[in-house]
């Protein structure tokens, strides 16, 4: 069964540095998402992406964040200048459609900011 894959599984970065988290969505899916989960808290929506542009974004997704689909397979989340509070588990998801279509999640990338 096809899966969403995320790399790396764990990223350790110094505060202020840029970080890029990578995701390969399921190949025939059209909608892509990023979520984060700070330790002990709920999973929070960051952004959705469709047709090469952002579809929706949450209040969390400020100017420090950006997303890109640089080629036909990868979907990336960039944090320009990381802060301590960016430490979290970041999940990528994809779906074939929106609304009632299920989203398929990757294993996540644990981002640790020192």
């Amino acid at each position: 069964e096809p899966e969403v894959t995320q790399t790396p599984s764990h990223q350790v970065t110094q505060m202020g540095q840029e970080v890029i988290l990578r995701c390969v969505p399921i190949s025939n899916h059209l909608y892509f998402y990023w979520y984060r989960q700070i330790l002990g808290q709920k999973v929070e929506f960051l952004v959705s992406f469709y047709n090469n542009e952002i579809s929706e974004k949450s209040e969390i997704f400020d100017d420090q964040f950006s997303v890109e689909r640089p080629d036909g397979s990868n979907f990336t989340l960039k944090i320009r200048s990381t802060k301590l509070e960016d430490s979290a588990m970041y999940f990528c998801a994809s779906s074939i459609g929106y609304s009632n279509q299920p989203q398929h999640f990757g294993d996540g990338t644990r981002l640790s900011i020192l």
Partner: protein
Amino acid sequence: AQRVTQPEKLLSVFKGAPVELKCNYSYSGSPELFWYVQYSRQRLQLLLRHISRESIKGFTADLNKGETSFHLKKPFAQEEDSAMYYCALTGTGGGADGLTFGKGTHLIIQP
């Protein structure tokens, strides 16, 4: 603002006992409701969605619009049901709305 509330952080029941995981939501329209499950060391995966009205692994969930609830139920719990369960909703506004998750309930099935 949309919100999902799962009042129980932890629920422990014995094998063979009935299970009910509570979920209440707040949304100013007609949401799509889902239950996601995360087994130990595995990824988040969809368990069921209200629109399909199906039973997966013996679990069912009925959307009650009057009570704004979407509780997850199983009549006889099994040890392999131990996992984190997340209730989630999304809008039907036409865009690729993200899911709004509850905080999750850790279900432990004791032998």
